[in-house]
Protein backbone atom coordinates (compact mmCIF):
# COMPACT_ATOMS: atom_id res chain seq x y z
CA UNK A 1 0.00 0.00 0.00
CA UNK A 2 1.32 3.43 -0.99
CA UNK A 3 1.13 6.75 0.72
CA UNK A 4 -2.19 8.47 1.27
CA UNK A 5 -2.95 12.02 2.36
CA UNK A 6 -4.65 11.97 5.76
CA UNK A 7 -5.48 14.26 8.62
CA UNK A 8 -3.48 13.40 11.74
CA UNK A 9 -6.49 12.50 13.88
CA UNK A 10 -7.91 10.14 11.27
CA UNK A 11 -4.50 8.58 10.66
CA UNK A 12 -4.18 7.90 14.39
CA UNK A 13 -7.55 6.11 14.42
CA UNK A 14 -6.66 4.07 11.36
CA UNK A 15 -3.24 3.22 12.80
CA UNK A 16 -4.83 1.63 15.85
CA UNK A 17 -7.00 -0.59 13.66
CA UNK A 18 -4.00 -1.50 11.48
CA UNK A 19 -2.07 -2.31 14.65
CA UNK A 20 -4.74 -4.85 15.62
CA UNK A 21 -6.74 -2.84 18.15
CA UNK A 22 -10.48 -3.09 17.56
CA UNK A 23 -11.83 -1.55 20.76
CA UNK A 24 -12.21 2.20 21.22
CA UNK A 25 -13.99 4.16 23.97
CA UNK A 26 -13.99 7.95 23.86
CA UNK A 27 -15.57 11.28 24.65
CA UNK A 28 -15.50 14.21 22.21
CA UNK A 29 -13.09 17.08 22.85
CA UNK A 30 -11.36 19.55 20.54
CA UNK A 31 -8.83 19.25 18.92
CA UNK A 32 -9.17 15.49 18.47
CA UNK A 33 -12.88 14.76 18.01
CA UNK A 34 -12.20 13.63 14.44
CA UNK A 35 -10.70 10.41 15.83
CA UNK A 36 -14.05 9.47 17.37
CA UNK A 37 -15.94 10.57 14.26
CA UNK A 38 -13.66 8.51 12.05
CA UNK A 39 -13.79 5.42 14.27
CA UNK A 40 -17.57 5.61 14.72
CA UNK A 41 -17.63 4.77 11.02
CA UNK A 42 -14.58 2.48 10.77
CA UNK A 43 -14.99 0.25 13.84
CA UNK A 44 -18.29 -1.25 12.66
CA UNK A 45 -16.68 -1.92 9.26
CA UNK A 46 -13.96 -4.04 10.86
CA UNK A 47 -16.23 -5.67 13.46
CA UNK A 48 -14.76 -3.62 16.29
CA UNK A 49 -16.21 -1.82 19.29
CA UNK A 50 -16.89 1.91 19.26
CA UNK A 51 -18.53 3.55 22.26
CA UNK A 52 -19.02 7.22 23.02
CA UNK A 53 -19.11 7.41 26.82
CA UNK A 54 -20.81 9.94 29.07
CA UNK A 55 -17.52 11.45 30.29
CA UNK A 56 -13.79 10.94 30.23
CA UNK A 57 -14.06 9.54 33.76
CA UNK A 58 -16.26 6.79 32.37
CA UNK A 59 -13.97 6.29 29.36
CA UNK A 60 -10.99 5.67 31.64
CA UNK A 61 -12.89 3.11 33.66
CA UNK A 62 -14.32 1.40 30.57
CA UNK A 63 -10.73 0.98 29.36
CA UNK A 64 -9.84 -0.34 32.82
CA UNK A 65 -12.56 -3.00 32.59
CA UNK A 66 -11.96 -3.92 28.97
CA UNK A 67 -8.18 -4.20 29.38
CA UNK A 68 -8.72 -6.17 32.59
CA UNK A 69 -10.62 -8.85 30.71
CA UNK A 70 -7.82 -9.09 28.16
CA UNK A 71 -8.94 -6.92 25.24
CA UNK A 72 -6.71 -4.55 23.29
CA UNK A 73 -8.14 -1.10 23.89
CA UNK A 74 -7.32 2.54 23.35
CA UNK A 75 -8.71 6.02 23.58
CA UNK A 76 -7.90 9.48 22.34
CA UNK A 77 -8.52 12.72 24.15
CA UNK A 78 -7.12 16.15 24.85
CA UNK A 79 -5.74 17.76 27.99
CA UNK A 80 -8.83 18.43 30.18
CA UNK A 81 -10.11 14.99 29.17
CA UNK A 82 -6.83 13.37 30.20
CA UNK A 83 -7.14 15.10 33.59
CA UNK A 84 -10.46 13.31 34.08
CA UNK A 85 -9.00 10.01 32.89
CA UNK A 86 -6.10 10.35 35.29
CA UNK A 87 -8.09 8.57 38.00
CA UNK A 88 -8.34 5.47 35.82
CA UNK A 89 -4.77 5.84 34.55
CA UNK A 90 -3.50 5.51 38.12
CA UNK A 91 -5.64 2.38 38.67
CA UNK A 92 -4.71 0.89 35.29
CA UNK A 93 -1.02 1.42 36.05
CA UNK A 94 -1.37 -0.24 39.44
CA UNK A 95 -3.42 -3.13 38.01
CA UNK A 96 -0.67 -3.49 35.36
CA UNK A 97 -2.93 -3.40 32.34
CA UNK A 98 -1.97 -2.57 28.77
CA UNK A 99 -3.92 0.44 27.46
CA UNK A 100 -2.94 3.05 24.88
CA UNK A 101 -3.88 6.69 25.50
CA UNK A 102 -3.44 9.39 22.86
CA UNK A 103 -3.36 12.97 24.16
CA UNK A 104 -3.63 15.62 21.45
CA UNK A 105 -2.54 18.36 23.81
CA UNK A 106 -4.25 21.75 23.86
CA UNK A 107 -3.33 24.87 25.83
CA UNK A 108 -4.00 25.04 29.55
CA UNK A 109 -4.45 25.30 32.46
CA UNK A 110 -8.20 24.98 32.89
CA UNK A 111 -10.09 25.20 29.65
CA UNK A 112 -7.03 26.96 28.24
CA UNK A 113 -7.41 27.05 24.48
CA UNK A 114 -7.75 24.68 21.56
CA UNK A 115 -4.47 25.54 19.83
CA UNK A 116 -1.32 23.37 19.86
CA UNK A 117 0.53 23.01 23.14
CA UNK A 118 3.00 20.82 24.99
CA UNK A 119 1.82 21.94 28.42
CA UNK A 120 0.92 18.39 29.49
CA UNK A 121 4.56 17.28 29.59
CA UNK A 122 4.53 17.11 33.39
CA UNK A 123 1.12 15.43 33.47
CA UNK A 124 2.28 12.74 31.04
CA UNK A 125 5.75 12.10 32.42
CA UNK A 126 5.46 12.83 36.15
CA UNK A 127 2.06 11.43 37.01
CA UNK A 128 -1.17 13.33 36.66
CA UNK A 129 -2.98 10.76 38.75
CA UNK A 130 -2.07 9.70 42.28
CA UNK A 131 0.63 7.30 43.42
CA UNK A 132 3.97 6.06 42.13
CA UNK A 133 3.44 5.19 38.52
CA UNK A 134 4.91 6.01 35.14
CA UNK A 135 3.56 5.90 31.65
CA UNK A 136 5.71 5.07 28.68
CA UNK A 137 5.33 8.34 26.75
CA UNK A 138 6.08 8.81 23.06
CA UNK A 139 5.99 12.13 21.22
CA UNK A 140 5.55 12.15 17.42
CA UNK A 141 6.88 14.98 15.26
CA UNK A 142 4.96 14.05 12.11
CA UNK A 143 1.80 12.23 11.19
CA UNK A 144 3.84 9.35 9.79
CA UNK A 145 5.64 9.08 13.11
CA UNK A 146 2.33 9.31 14.99
CA UNK A 147 1.07 6.35 12.97
CA UNK A 148 4.18 4.32 13.70
CA UNK A 149 4.14 5.20 17.39
CA UNK A 150 0.47 4.24 17.75
CA UNK A 151 1.17 0.92 16.03
CA UNK A 152 4.21 0.30 18.24
CA UNK A 153 2.39 1.33 21.40
CA UNK A 154 0.19 -1.78 21.65
CA UNK A 155 2.94 -4.43 21.82
CA UNK A 156 4.92 -2.13 24.14
CA UNK A 157 1.93 -1.75 26.46
CA UNK A 158 1.57 -5.54 26.49
CA UNK A 159 5.29 -6.16 26.95
CA UNK A 160 5.27 -4.05 30.13
CA UNK A 161 1.61 -4.53 31.08
CA UNK A 162 1.57 -0.76 31.47
CA UNK A 163 -0.28 2.14 29.87
CA UNK A 164 1.47 3.86 26.98
CA UNK A 165 0.71 7.46 26.09
CA UNK A 166 1.20 9.15 22.75
CA UNK A 167 1.68 12.86 23.45
CA UNK A 168 0.85 14.83 20.33
CA UNK A 169 -0.30 18.38 19.96
CA UNK A 170 -3.06 20.15 18.06
CA UNK A 171 -0.92 20.38 14.92
CA UNK A 172 -0.28 16.64 14.83
CA UNK A 173 -4.03 16.10 15.12
CA UNK A 174 -5.23 18.73 12.67
CA UNK A 175 -2.51 18.76 9.99
CA UNK A 176 -2.70 16.68 6.79
CA UNK A 177 0.38 14.80 5.59
CA UNK A 178 1.08 11.78 3.40
CA UNK A 179 1.15 8.60 5.47
CA UNK A 180 1.83 4.93 5.02
CA UNK A 181 0.69 2.18 7.42
CA UNK A 182 3.60 -0.25 7.79
CA UNK A 183 2.18 -3.77 7.57
CA UNK A 184 5.02 -5.18 9.70
CA UNK A 185 3.84 -3.14 12.70
CA UNK A 186 0.61 -5.09 12.89
CA UNK A 187 0.75 -7.40 15.93
CA UNK A 188 -1.56 -9.93 17.50
CA UNK A 189 -2.68 -9.27 21.09
CA UNK A 190 -0.54 -11.32 23.48
CA UNK A 191 -1.91 -14.23 25.51
CA UNK A 192 -3.28 -12.85 28.77
CA UNK A 193 -4.60 -16.03 30.36
CA UNK A 194 -2.27 -15.67 33.35
CA UNK A 195 -4.02 -12.60 34.68
CA UNK A 196 -7.00 -11.42 32.59
CA UNK A 197 -10.58 -11.83 33.83
CA UNK A 198 -11.53 -13.39 30.52
CA UNK A 199 -13.70 -16.08 32.12
CA UNK A 200 -12.40 -19.37 33.49
CA UNK A 201 -14.04 -21.31 30.63
CA UNK A 202 -12.19 -19.18 28.06
CA UNK A 203 -8.80 -20.16 29.43
CA UNK A 204 -9.87 -23.67 30.49
CA UNK A 205 -8.86 -23.04 34.08
CA UNK A 206 -10.51 -23.55 37.45
CA UNK A 207 -8.50 -20.75 39.04
CA UNK A 208 -10.16 -17.31 39.13
CA UNK A 209 -8.20 -14.30 37.95
CA UNK A 210 -8.35 -11.03 39.82
CA UNK A 211 -7.67 -7.48 38.68
CA UNK A 212 -7.10 -5.30 41.72
CA UNK A 213 -5.22 -2.33 43.10
CA UNK A 214 -5.88 -2.54 46.86
CA UNK A 215 -3.04 -3.72 49.07
CA UNK A 216 -3.96 -3.09 52.70
CA UNK A 217 -0.86 -4.84 54.03
CA UNK A 218 2.20 -2.54 54.10
CA UNK A 219 4.61 -5.26 53.04
CA UNK A 220 2.41 -6.31 50.12
CA UNK A 221 2.02 -2.72 48.92
CA UNK A 222 5.77 -2.19 49.23
CA UNK A 223 6.38 -5.36 47.21
CA UNK A 224 3.86 -4.19 44.59
CA UNK A 225 5.55 -0.80 44.22
CA UNK A 226 8.95 -2.44 43.92
CA UNK A 227 7.60 -4.58 41.06
CA UNK A 228 6.25 -1.48 39.34
CA UNK A 229 9.55 0.36 39.79
CA UNK A 230 11.46 -2.55 38.29
CA UNK A 231 9.31 -2.17 35.15
CA UNK A 232 10.00 1.55 34.92
CA UNK A 233 13.73 0.91 35.39
CA UNK A 234 13.60 -1.67 32.59
CA UNK A 235 11.92 0.88 30.33
CA UNK A 236 14.79 3.26 31.08
CA UNK A 237 17.27 0.60 29.97
CA UNK A 238 15.42 -0.70 26.92
CA UNK A 239 13.02 1.87 25.50
CA UNK A 240 14.84 5.22 25.23
CA UNK A 241 14.28 6.63 21.75
CA UNK A 242 15.59 9.89 20.34
CA UNK A 243 16.72 11.45 17.12
CA UNK A 244 19.99 13.41 16.91
CA UNK A 245 20.21 16.19 14.33
CA UNK A 246 23.44 17.81 13.12
CA UNK A 247 25.28 16.45 16.14
CA UNK A 248 28.35 15.44 14.11
CA UNK A 249 29.40 19.10 13.79
CA UNK A 250 31.21 21.41 16.20
CA UNK A 251 27.96 22.98 17.33
CA UNK A 252 27.92 25.90 19.73
CA UNK A 253 24.38 25.36 20.98
CA UNK A 254 22.41 22.19 21.60
CA UNK A 255 18.64 22.34 21.27
CA UNK A 256 16.40 19.82 23.01
CA UNK A 257 12.91 19.87 21.53
CA UNK A 258 10.13 17.37 20.74
CA UNK A 259 7.01 17.05 18.63
CA UNK A 260 5.86 19.87 16.37
CA UNK A 261 8.25 22.33 18.04
CA UNK A 262 11.23 20.21 16.98
CA UNK A 263 10.29 20.64 13.32
CA UNK A 264 10.67 24.39 13.60
CA UNK A 265 14.00 23.82 15.35
CA UNK A 266 15.26 21.74 12.39
CA UNK A 267 14.60 24.70 10.14
CA UNK A 268 16.48 26.91 12.61
CA UNK A 269 19.47 24.56 12.57
CA UNK A 270 19.49 24.50 8.74
CA UNK A 271 19.18 28.30 8.48
CA UNK A 272 21.98 28.87 10.97
CA UNK A 273 24.16 26.33 9.18
CA UNK A 274 23.78 28.42 6.00
CA UNK A 275 25.15 31.35 8.01
CA UNK A 276 28.10 29.20 9.11
CA UNK A 277 26.80 28.91 12.68
CA UNK A 278 26.50 25.29 13.80
CA UNK A 279 23.82 24.21 16.22
CA UNK A 280 22.44 20.72 16.89
CA UNK A 281 19.41 19.02 18.37
CA UNK A 282 18.47 15.98 20.38
CA UNK A 283 14.80 15.25 19.78
CA UNK A 284 13.37 12.94 22.46
CA UNK A 285 10.95 10.48 20.85
CA UNK A 286 10.25 8.95 24.24
CA UNK A 287 9.60 11.52 26.99
CA UNK A 288 9.54 8.72 29.53
CA UNK A 289 12.00 7.11 29.52
CA UNK A 290 13.87 10.35 28.86
CA UNK A 291 17.08 10.26 26.78
CA UNK A 292 19.21 11.47 29.69
CA UNK A 293 22.53 9.97 28.64
CA UNK A 294 22.41 11.04 24.95
CA UNK A 295 21.57 14.60 26.04
CA UNK A 296 24.37 14.61 28.58
CA UNK A 297 26.90 13.35 26.04
CA UNK A 298 25.77 15.87 23.43
CA UNK A 299 25.79 18.71 25.97
CA UNK A 300 29.34 17.96 27.09
CA UNK A 301 30.82 18.22 23.60
CA UNK A 302 33.82 20.58 23.72
CA UNK A 303 32.32 23.11 21.26
CA UNK A 304 28.91 23.28 22.97
CA UNK A 305 28.41 26.43 25.04
CA UNK A 306 24.73 26.26 25.94
CA UNK A 307 21.76 23.92 25.93
CA UNK A 308 18.32 25.31 25.17
CA UNK A 309 15.11 23.42 25.80
CA UNK A 310 12.52 24.76 23.38
CA UNK A 311 8.94 23.81 24.23
CA UNK A 312 5.32 24.83 23.66
CA UNK A 313 4.87 25.54 27.37
CA UNK A 314 6.33 27.67 30.14
CA UNK A 315 9.30 25.39 30.82
CA UNK A 316 8.63 21.79 31.77
CA UNK A 317 10.98 19.46 29.88
CA UNK A 318 13.80 21.88 30.74
CA UNK A 319 13.80 20.35 34.24
CA UNK A 320 14.60 16.93 32.76
CA UNK A 321 17.22 18.49 30.51
CA UNK A 322 18.90 20.14 33.54
CA UNK A 323 18.77 16.81 35.34
CA UNK A 324 20.39 15.11 32.36
CA UNK A 325 23.17 17.70 31.90
CA UNK A 326 23.87 17.66 35.64
CA UNK A 327 25.34 21.14 35.74
CA UNK A 328 27.97 20.46 33.09
CA UNK A 329 26.80 23.38 30.91
CA UNK A 330 24.28 26.23 31.25
CA UNK A 331 20.73 25.12 30.42
CA UNK A 332 18.11 27.61 29.22
CA UNK A 333 14.47 27.42 28.27
CA UNK A 334 12.48 29.14 25.59
CA UNK A 335 8.87 28.60 24.69
CA UNK A 336 5.34 29.86 24.27
CA UNK A 337 2.15 28.54 25.83
CA UNK A 338 -0.69 30.47 24.23
CA UNK A 339 -1.03 28.38 21.10
CA UNK A 340 1.30 30.24 18.72
CA UNK A 341 4.31 28.24 17.61
CA UNK A 342 7.55 30.31 17.78
CA UNK A 343 8.94 31.19 14.34
CA UNK A 344 12.44 30.23 13.17
CA UNK A 345 13.47 33.91 13.26
CA UNK A 346 12.36 34.24 16.86
CA UNK A 347 14.30 31.14 17.90
CA UNK A 348 17.41 32.22 15.98
CA UNK A 349 17.43 35.49 17.95
CA UNK A 350 17.02 33.58 21.21
CA UNK A 351 19.87 31.17 20.41
CA UNK A 352 22.19 34.01 19.44
CA UNK A 353 21.39 35.90 22.64
CA UNK A 354 22.25 32.83 24.74
CA UNK A 355 25.46 32.02 22.85
CA UNK A 356 26.95 35.53 22.76
Amino acid sequence: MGKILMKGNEAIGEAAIRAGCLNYFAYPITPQSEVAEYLSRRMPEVGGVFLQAESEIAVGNMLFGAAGCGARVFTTSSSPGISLMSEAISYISSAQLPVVFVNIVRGGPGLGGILPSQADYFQATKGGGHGDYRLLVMAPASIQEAVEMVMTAFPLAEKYRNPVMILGDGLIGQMMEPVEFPEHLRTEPSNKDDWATNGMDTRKSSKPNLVKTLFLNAEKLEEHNVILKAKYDRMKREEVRYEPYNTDTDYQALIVSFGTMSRVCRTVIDDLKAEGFETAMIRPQTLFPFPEEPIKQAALKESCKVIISIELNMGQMVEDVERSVQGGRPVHWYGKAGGDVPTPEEIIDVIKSFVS
Partner: protein
Amino acid sequence: MAKTFKKPEALSDQPPHYCPGCTHGVIHRLVAEVIDELGIRGRTVGIAPVGCAVLAYNYFTFDFQEAAHGRAPAMATGIKRVRPDLIVFTYQGDGDLASIGMGEIIHAANRGEKFTTIFVNNTVYGMTGGQMAPTTLQGQRTTTSPAGRNVEEVGMPVKMAELISALETPAYVTRQTVLKPKYIVRAKKAIKKAFQYQIDGRCFSLVELVSTCPTNWGLTPVESVKWAEENMLPYFKLGEYKTPDDVEED
Protein backbone atom coordinates in the same frame (compact mmCIF):
# COMPACT_ATOMS: atom_id res chain seq x y z
CA MET B 1 -26.98 -39.55 54.66
CA ALA B 2 -27.16 -37.23 51.67
CA LYS B 3 -26.28 -33.59 52.09
CA THR B 4 -29.21 -31.41 51.11
CA PHE B 5 -27.80 -28.02 52.14
CA LYS B 6 -24.26 -27.14 51.20
CA LYS B 7 -22.07 -24.19 50.35
CA PRO B 8 -22.46 -23.07 46.73
CA GLU B 9 -19.50 -23.84 44.47
CA ALA B 10 -19.33 -20.15 43.54
CA LEU B 11 -18.61 -19.26 47.19
CA SER B 12 -15.06 -19.67 48.55
CA ASP B 13 -14.02 -21.13 51.91
CA GLN B 14 -12.64 -17.86 53.21
CA PRO B 15 -14.41 -16.55 56.33
CA PRO B 16 -15.93 -13.14 55.53
CA HIS B 17 -14.68 -9.96 57.23
CA TYR B 18 -18.19 -8.52 57.54
CA CYS B 19 -19.56 -7.40 60.91
CA PRO B 20 -22.03 -9.58 62.85
CA GLY B 21 -25.55 -9.05 61.51
CA CYS B 22 -24.36 -7.51 58.24
CA THR B 23 -26.46 -8.55 55.27
CA HIS B 24 -23.57 -8.77 52.78
CA GLY B 25 -23.04 -12.42 53.75
CA VAL B 26 -26.63 -13.35 52.84
CA ILE B 27 -26.49 -11.42 49.56
CA HIS B 28 -23.14 -12.98 48.60
CA ARG B 29 -24.67 -16.39 49.17
CA LEU B 30 -27.74 -15.63 47.08
CA VAL B 31 -25.57 -14.43 44.19
CA ALA B 32 -23.40 -17.55 44.48
CA GLU B 33 -26.43 -19.87 44.56
CA VAL B 34 -27.87 -18.22 41.46
CA ILE B 35 -24.56 -18.48 39.60
CA ASP B 36 -24.38 -22.18 40.49
CA GLU B 37 -27.96 -22.84 39.46
CA LEU B 38 -27.52 -21.08 36.13
CA GLY B 39 -24.19 -22.84 35.52
CA ILE B 40 -22.37 -19.66 34.57
CA ARG B 41 -19.42 -19.61 36.99
CA GLY B 42 -16.90 -20.24 34.23
CA ARG B 43 -17.96 -17.20 32.26
CA THR B 44 -18.86 -14.76 35.01
CA VAL B 45 -16.90 -11.65 35.96
CA GLY B 46 -17.87 -9.83 39.14
CA ILE B 47 -16.97 -6.24 39.90
CA ALA B 48 -16.22 -5.26 43.46
CA PRO B 49 -16.95 -1.68 44.52
CA VAL B 50 -15.19 0.64 46.89
CA GLY B 51 -16.85 0.15 50.26
CA CYS B 52 -17.36 -2.78 52.60
CA ALA B 53 -17.61 -5.20 49.68
CA VAL B 54 -14.26 -4.13 48.18
CA LEU B 55 -12.87 -7.52 49.16
CA ALA B 56 -15.89 -9.43 47.78
CA TYR B 57 -13.59 -11.29 45.39
CA ASN B 58 -12.15 -13.18 48.34
CA TYR B 59 -15.50 -14.86 48.84
CA PHE B 60 -16.30 -15.94 45.29
CA THR B 61 -14.66 -18.53 43.06
CA PHE B 62 -14.79 -16.82 39.66
CA ASP B 63 -13.07 -13.90 37.94
CA PHE B 64 -13.29 -10.51 39.59
CA GLN B 65 -12.20 -6.94 39.01
CA GLU B 66 -12.00 -4.23 41.64
CA ALA B 67 -13.33 -0.85 40.52
CA ALA B 68 -12.54 2.72 41.50
CA HIS B 69 -15.16 4.35 43.72
CA GLY B 70 -18.48 4.50 41.88
CA ARG B 71 -17.03 3.44 38.54
CA ALA B 72 -18.12 -0.21 38.56
CA PRO B 73 -20.81 0.39 35.88
CA ALA B 74 -18.23 1.95 33.54
CA MET B 75 -15.86 -0.95 34.19
CA ALA B 76 -18.68 -3.44 33.56
CA THR B 77 -19.52 -1.59 30.34
CA GLY B 78 -15.92 -1.97 29.17
CA ILE B 79 -15.92 -5.71 29.85
CA LYS B 80 -19.35 -6.46 28.41
CA ARG B 81 -18.77 -4.43 25.24
CA VAL B 82 -15.57 -6.25 24.34
CA ARG B 83 -16.71 -9.67 25.62
CA PRO B 84 -20.51 -9.91 25.21
CA ASP B 85 -20.31 -13.65 25.95
CA LEU B 86 -19.22 -13.05 29.55
CA ILE B 87 -21.78 -12.63 32.34
CA VAL B 88 -20.94 -9.44 34.18
CA PHE B 89 -22.33 -7.99 37.39
CA THR B 90 -21.46 -5.08 39.63
CA TYR B 91 -21.91 -5.30 43.39
CA GLN B 92 -22.28 -1.81 44.84
CA GLY B 93 -23.29 -0.01 48.00
CA ASP B 94 -25.28 3.19 48.29
CA GLY B 95 -22.35 5.61 48.74
CA ASP B 96 -20.63 4.03 45.75
CA LEU B 97 -23.65 3.81 43.44
CA ALA B 98 -25.96 6.66 44.49
CA SER B 99 -23.34 9.31 45.27
CA ILE B 100 -19.94 9.23 43.57
CA GLY B 101 -21.10 6.77 40.92
CA MET B 102 -24.46 8.36 40.08
CA GLY B 103 -23.27 9.44 36.64
CA GLU B 104 -21.90 6.05 35.73
CA ILE B 105 -24.95 4.05 36.85
CA ILE B 106 -27.48 6.34 35.15
CA HIS B 107 -25.67 6.31 31.82
CA ALA B 108 -24.89 2.60 31.87
CA ALA B 109 -28.57 1.91 32.64
CA ASN B 110 -29.75 4.32 29.99
CA ARG B 111 -27.49 2.83 27.31
CA GLY B 112 -28.98 -0.49 28.22
CA GLU B 113 -25.63 -2.11 28.97
CA LYS B 114 -26.14 -5.83 29.19
CA PHE B 115 -24.93 -6.39 32.75
CA THR B 116 -26.56 -6.76 36.18
CA THR B 117 -26.18 -4.49 39.19
CA ILE B 118 -26.66 -5.76 42.73
CA PHE B 119 -27.24 -2.61 44.78
CA VAL B 120 -26.94 -2.96 48.55
CA ASN B 121 -28.68 -0.05 50.27
CA ASN B 122 -28.06 0.32 54.00
CA THR B 123 -28.33 4.15 54.17
CA VAL B 124 -24.72 4.80 55.21
CA TYR B 125 -21.10 4.68 54.06
CA GLY B 126 -20.10 1.52 55.88
CA MET B 127 -16.39 1.15 55.17
CA THR B 128 -15.42 4.74 56.00
CA GLY B 129 -17.28 4.63 59.31
CA GLY B 130 -20.94 5.47 58.93
CA GLN B 131 -21.07 8.83 57.18
CA MET B 132 -24.25 10.20 55.61
CA ALA B 133 -25.13 8.73 52.20
CA PRO B 134 -27.60 9.95 49.55
CA THR B 135 -29.92 7.24 50.90
CA THR B 136 -29.69 8.25 54.59
CA LEU B 137 -33.24 8.71 55.87
CA GLN B 138 -34.70 12.03 56.97
CA GLY B 139 -33.57 12.73 60.53
CA GLN B 140 -31.21 9.74 60.60
CA ARG B 141 -28.09 10.38 62.65
CA THR B 142 -24.74 9.53 61.07
CA THR B 143 -21.18 10.62 61.78
CA THR B 144 -21.56 13.51 59.30
CA SER B 145 -25.17 14.32 60.20
CA PRO B 146 -24.90 14.20 64.00
CA ALA B 147 -28.18 16.10 64.42
CA GLY B 148 -29.93 13.87 61.90
CA ARG B 149 -30.26 14.28 58.12
CA ASN B 150 -31.60 17.77 57.52
CA VAL B 151 -33.49 17.63 54.24
CA GLU B 152 -33.61 21.43 54.10
CA GLU B 153 -29.84 21.31 53.61
CA VAL B 154 -29.19 18.10 51.71
CA GLY B 155 -32.51 17.08 50.22
CA MET B 156 -34.53 13.90 50.55
CA PRO B 157 -32.99 10.42 50.33
CA VAL B 158 -32.51 9.16 46.77
CA LYS B 159 -34.73 6.32 45.64
CA MET B 160 -32.54 4.54 43.13
CA ALA B 161 -34.95 1.85 41.94
CA GLU B 162 -37.55 4.53 41.13
CA LEU B 163 -34.94 6.73 39.48
CA ILE B 164 -33.53 3.98 37.24
CA SER B 165 -36.97 2.67 36.36
CA ALA B 166 -37.92 6.15 35.13
CA LEU B 167 -35.50 5.59 32.25
CA GLU B 168 -36.99 4.04 29.13
CA THR B 169 -34.17 1.59 28.38
CA PRO B 170 -33.41 -0.68 31.36
CA ALA B 171 -34.90 -4.18 31.24
CA TYR B 172 -35.47 -5.04 34.86
CA VAL B 173 -35.52 -2.94 38.02
CA THR B 174 -36.60 -4.29 41.36
CA ARG B 175 -36.26 -3.50 45.05
CA GLN B 176 -36.14 -6.40 47.50
CA THR B 177 -34.71 -6.98 50.94
CA VAL B 178 -32.97 -9.72 52.91
CA LEU B 179 -34.21 -8.72 56.38
CA LYS B 180 -36.16 -11.96 56.98
CA PRO B 181 -36.33 -15.44 55.39
CA LYS B 182 -39.59 -14.72 53.54
CA TYR B 183 -37.95 -11.67 51.94
CA ILE B 184 -34.76 -13.61 51.19
CA VAL B 185 -36.68 -16.12 49.08
CA ARG B 186 -38.11 -13.26 46.99
CA ALA B 187 -34.72 -11.54 46.78
CA LYS B 188 -33.12 -14.67 45.39
CA LYS B 189 -35.87 -15.00 42.81
CA ALA B 190 -35.22 -11.41 41.72
CA ILE B 191 -31.45 -11.93 41.50
CA LYS B 192 -31.97 -15.06 39.46
CA LYS B 193 -34.34 -13.26 37.10
CA ALA B 194 -31.81 -10.47 36.62
CA PHE B 195 -29.02 -12.91 35.68
CA GLN B 196 -31.37 -14.93 33.48
CA TYR B 197 -32.34 -11.76 31.59
CA GLN B 198 -28.65 -11.09 31.01
CA ILE B 199 -28.11 -14.61 29.72
CA ASP B 200 -31.08 -14.06 27.40
CA GLY B 201 -29.41 -10.95 26.01
CA ARG B 202 -31.79 -8.54 27.73
CA CYS B 203 -30.26 -5.23 28.71
CA PHE B 204 -29.51 -3.60 32.04
CA SER B 205 -30.99 -4.89 35.28
CA LEU B 206 -30.80 -3.49 38.81
CA VAL B 207 -31.64 -5.38 41.98
CA GLU B 208 -31.75 -3.01 44.95
CA LEU B 209 -31.59 -4.77 48.30
CA VAL B 210 -32.65 -2.98 51.49
CA SER B 211 -29.97 -3.96 53.98
CA THR B 212 -28.66 -3.24 57.45
CA CYS B 213 -25.51 -1.85 59.02
CA PRO B 214 -25.71 -2.68 62.73
CA THR B 215 -22.19 -1.38 63.43
CA ASN B 216 -22.73 2.09 62.01
CA TRP B 217 -26.34 2.31 63.09
CA GLY B 218 -25.24 1.54 66.67
CA LEU B 219 -27.84 -1.22 66.99
CA THR B 220 -27.75 -4.95 67.56
CA PRO B 221 -28.41 -7.16 64.54
CA VAL B 222 -31.93 -7.90 65.80
CA GLU B 223 -32.66 -4.21 66.48
CA SER B 224 -31.28 -3.38 63.04
CA VAL B 225 -33.76 -5.63 61.29
CA LYS B 226 -36.59 -4.04 63.26
CA TRP B 227 -35.31 -0.52 62.52
CA ALA B 228 -35.01 -1.27 58.81
CA GLU B 229 -38.50 -2.74 58.64
CA GLU B 230 -40.02 0.20 60.49
CA ASN B 231 -38.04 3.01 58.87
CA MET B 232 -36.64 1.88 55.53
CA LEU B 233 -39.42 -0.26 54.08
CA PRO B 234 -42.08 2.50 54.24
CA TYR B 235 -39.78 4.82 52.26
CA PHE B 236 -37.88 2.32 50.10
CA LYS B 237 -40.91 0.33 48.95
CA LEU B 238 -40.34 -3.23 47.82
CA GLY B 239 -41.52 -4.42 44.44
CA GLU B 240 -40.88 -4.86 40.75
CA TYR B 241 -40.35 -1.40 39.26
CA LYS B 242 -39.70 -2.40 35.68
CA THR B 243 -39.83 -5.71 33.84
CA PRO B 244 -38.78 -6.48 30.27
CA ASP B 245 -41.27 -5.13 27.74
CA ASP B 246 -43.30 -4.01 30.78
CA VAL B 247 -45.02 -7.37 30.84
CA GLU B 248 -46.29 -8.12 34.34
CA GLU B 249 -44.87 -11.34 35.69
CA ASP B 250 -45.90 -13.46 38.62
